[in-house]
Every structure is written in C-alpha cells, then in structure tokens.
C-alpha cells in the first residue's frame, strides 16, 4: 500500500473565533550546542489561560525550550514575546540581564524537577516564597509573611511547617514550596519542568491535583514539560510533541492522544498504552 498517496489530515486554519491575543509567542527558535542541534526552528504559541503540554523523550529539546521561556538561555536565532503591559512587541531575548531578571521575577514562575534548582534549601520555606516578593520590592515584614502564607496555602502546603527548611521536607512538599514561590507574584506564565517526575505515584497525583485547582481558580497560563504522557493528558489543553529539537506534531490534547498523526507520536502513545 502506498501510504504517501493516502489523504493526510486536513491542514488546520489560523484561529478565527479566538479573540484573545496569544500570551506567549516563540518564533523560529534554533539553538546549537557544539555539534548538537538542540532546537530547530521551533514555533510556539500559548493563549491566556491555556495549559500547553510539551512531550518528548530526553534530549528532544523540550527542557531547553522551557529554559528559554524562562530566559535562562538564549537561542542562536528566533524571537520570543510575552504579551505583558508595555512589552507587547519586544523580543525578550534582547533584554539585558537586569531586565530579564526583573521580568522573570515579576511575570514568570517556574517549578523545576530538581528542587535544588529552584529553592534555597537551608532557608525557611516561607523565606523562599518571600524572596520573590523581596526582589519585587516588598519591604513590609508582615506583608511578606502574609503573602508567603497565602501562596503556600494555595499550593496546599501545611502552614504549620511554613518555616521549615526545604531540606527537611519530602519531595512532594518541596515541589509545593517551589509552586508557592512561583505563584506568589501571580505570574502571567507558569512554567513546569517535569514537576512531578521522581515523586511517588500517590504524591504525584496530589501535586497534579493542586496544579489543576490553581489553574481552575486563577486561570494561570501554564507550559508543562514532561516525558510522562499521563501527566500531560491530565493537565494539558494542547500538546506539542518534540523530537530531535523539532515539533513533530501539535494539537488538542485529546486529539494527539486519540488520533496521533506523526509516526513518532503514534509510537509514543502506543508505547504508553
């Protein structure tokens, strides 16, 4: 059978009904590390309130892309805009280190798989949350305290332990501290890099549930990177499938999982099921 002659799925049109402008737009992002082409012409668009899932195996470039969204790394080429007041048409990769840091502190929250990357392990949990607010210029101890408490509570962290050091906490609790820190300033964009990988399955379910709740209550725009299709399926509205630094397929989450179009996605989905 000649597959090539068979009809492929219809090409999707540009959005017509969606009136909101995308919050995040990345255009033609390419990055090379030595001989390795980590990203090749990646485009990404995320609308306000959406959860965008990025799946792919290790080395597919998904975490590199997320790090770029957090302005931790810059590509060799490509543009990145976030629809923030006063910054609508600015390529964020052109910002200075200082501007980048302030923008990230105020508008982007991130939860890393490894809590050591996101937390000061020997400071109190509440202090880890308060640091964000301090960077943004909050100088009242009582307000720092109450806002830290609020964010930890929203992350369903037990408040009687709010001054415990993350190093004394379980993995699930550490992720909640990271999450509280990430949402303390009500970011426009929440980035999640394998947030539940390495946690016990039951703990993972609880953390995902917290994320779901937050998403529902606050309509935070999220980009979630995971190699775990189950996590993506639970969380994401739309999915990008990455392989060898390229986006091989994207679509609505249920469509990508039920009717994958690309051979690699089919392999991925079948391997999971």
């Amino acid at each position, binding site marked *: 059978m000649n597959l090539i002659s068979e009809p492929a799925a219809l090409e999707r049109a540009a959005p017509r009904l969606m009136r909101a402008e995308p919050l995040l737009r990345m255009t033609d992002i390419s990055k090379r590390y030595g001989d390795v082409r980590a990203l090749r012409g990646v485009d990404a668009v995320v609308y306000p309130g959406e959860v965008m899932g990025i799946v792919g195996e290790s080395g597919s470039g998904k975490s590199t892309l997320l790090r770029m969204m957090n302005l931790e790394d810059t590509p060799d080429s490509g543009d990145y805009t976030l629809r923030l007041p006063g910054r609508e048409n600015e390529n964020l990769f052109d910002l200075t280190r*200082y501007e980048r840091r302030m923008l990230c502190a105020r508008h982007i929250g991130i939860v890393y798989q490894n809590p050591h990357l996101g937390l000061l392990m020997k400071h109190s949990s509440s202090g880890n949350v308060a*640091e964000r607010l301090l960077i943004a210029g909050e*100088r*009242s101890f009582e307000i720092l305290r109450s806002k830290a408490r609020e964010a930890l509570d929203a992350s369903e962290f037990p408040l009687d332990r709010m*001054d415990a050091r993350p190093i004394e906490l379980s993995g699930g609790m550490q992720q909640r501290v990271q999450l509280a820190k990430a949402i303390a300033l009500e970011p426009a964009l929440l980035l999640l890099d394998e947030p539940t990988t390495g946690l016990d399955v039951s703990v993972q379910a609880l953390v995902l549930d917290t994320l779901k709740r937050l998403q529902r209550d606050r309509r935070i725009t999220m980009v979630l990177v995971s190699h775990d299709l189950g996590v993506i399926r639970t969380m994401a509205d739309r999915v990008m499938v990455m392989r060898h630094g390229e986006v091989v397929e994207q679509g609505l989450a249920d469509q990508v999982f039920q009717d994958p179009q690309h051979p690699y996605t089919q392999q991925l989905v079948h391997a999971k099921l």
Partner: protein
Amino acid sequence: MSLATLTKDWAATSYGFLDASAKRELRRKMLKAIAVPGCQMPYASREVPMARGWGTGGLQVTLTLVNPNSVVKVIDQGADDGVNAASIRRFISRVSGASETWDTLEATIVQSRHRVPEEIMRENQVLVLQVPNPEPLRGVEPNISIARQMHADADYGKLWLTLYEQIVRKGRIMQGAAYPSMVNGRHVMTPSPIPRWDVPKLNMSKHLTILSAGREKRLYAVPPYTRVEPLVFSDRPYLVEDHAALTCRRSGVSGFFMNELPQDGGGSVFEVSDSNLGIKAIDCADGAPDAIGDTWYRNGEFSA
C-alpha cells in the same frame, strides 16, 4: 640638563612611605569610589610594615591622603591609646610629618577601627574606616564574580532574605556590627564592623568616609551628604544598641556608646567607648577649657 636635575636622590622611602605610583592608584580608586558611592573598587594593596588584617587598608588610604599640614587621629574601638592605634598614628606622622591628635575636632584625617567618633565631623575632615570584609553579599553568595553581578543588578533579594530569616527564627534582626546599608539608594555596602549605633552617623554626613580593606584589596566610599540607609523592613524599625541610659563610670557622661566591663560579682560597669570624649568630659569637670563639640547623639537620642 643632566639626569641628576631631572631625578631625585635616592631615599630609603618615598614621602608617606608608599611610592608615587601606589599613591596614584589609590587616589584614582578613591575618586572612582566617590563617584559611585558604596561601590567596591579593587586596588593593588601594597605591602606596609604591618600584618594584613591590622588596618593595612585604612593605613594605605591615610598615607595617600596625608600631607605635612594634616592632623591625624587614629582610634581602635574608640580609643586613641590602644597599642595598635598609637603605633599606626606614630608611623603616619613619622613618614609624613603630619601632626598627631586625640581630639576629633582638631583632626583632618580620622583613621578608625570599628567606631565613628561621637562628635560630629565636618566637611573638611575625612573618616577612614578599616574594613576586614568589604562584601555584604559574602554570606549569601560566596562566588565573588556572581556577587559583583548581583551588585550590578542591585540584586539584594537574598540579603533581605537573611534579615527575614533572622526575624522568623529569632524574633528580631540579629545582625550586630557591619549592618548592611544601602548607599545613595543603589549599592549595598557593609559599613565595616561599626556598631548599629554608628550607622546613622554616616547618613547625609558632612564628612567624606572612605572604607578600605587591605587584605581584600577593595575600597569604597560614602561621599559627603549621601544617603546611607540600613536595610530594614518598613514595619520593623532599625534599632541601635540599648546604650542611651548607660553612664560612664569614669567620666560620668551618659547617652553614648559604651564599653561593657564585666565584674566579678556578675554585674557590669560601663565606660564611654569614645575615650577622648570621656577625657574631655573629665577635663571640663576639672574646669579646663577643653570643650566637647556637638555630638550626633544628645541624651542618648540620635539628633543630627
């Protein structure tokens, strides 16, 4: 014209001990430090006949500033008569011909270890503070290169965080001496290990303050009339040491920073830390015309 007319005769040391190029470097770095208040400037830190850590940074600054008309006062924890202070003062006058004094009002240069005198300093005076550790971020960022970036970005979140942690853990800010302070609203500096009592004296002061760390090879400055604001939370006021009600057992003055002398019985007696202030007070009581100048604190309250 011969070479002899263009050069000086050989001498064992240059004027003011340091050679001309060393002093030129220090002058340049001091000007730079004044231009960017609170920003640390690296310098070469030459050898002086004193061990690193004993005030070599302050000494190099003083040796650069000094001239035969200078009047030099050197204090160690407020005292003019400590061995270290006396030795440094004599060394300075010996290599420069400057005159020596114990009186803050007479001095043109006050080199100090860990205190700011109690009498208000004037526009034509320079305070040189000896600094053991010039980096306020050392406790939160051991990597000097990153700490410099943090200063450049005014990234002081972690420093604030340590203060937050102290209140959370101990109920109050535990930082005693060397209280981190924002200079001119831009750079955070450590004001050398002066007590909290002394930090307000640097704020909008008339005199120039130069802080220099010989071992760490950095100096920084607070120019006259420059804001120096201790890092405090808006709802946790800055507190100085609780010395306002203490009285000096020798001079009888009260309302100044005191040295505590523990007694065998378990109690303590106190002596005024600025020893020349105590001497002036005793002389006044004896009828001498030795007037005490205006002080930053009056009746234990900061008033300048």
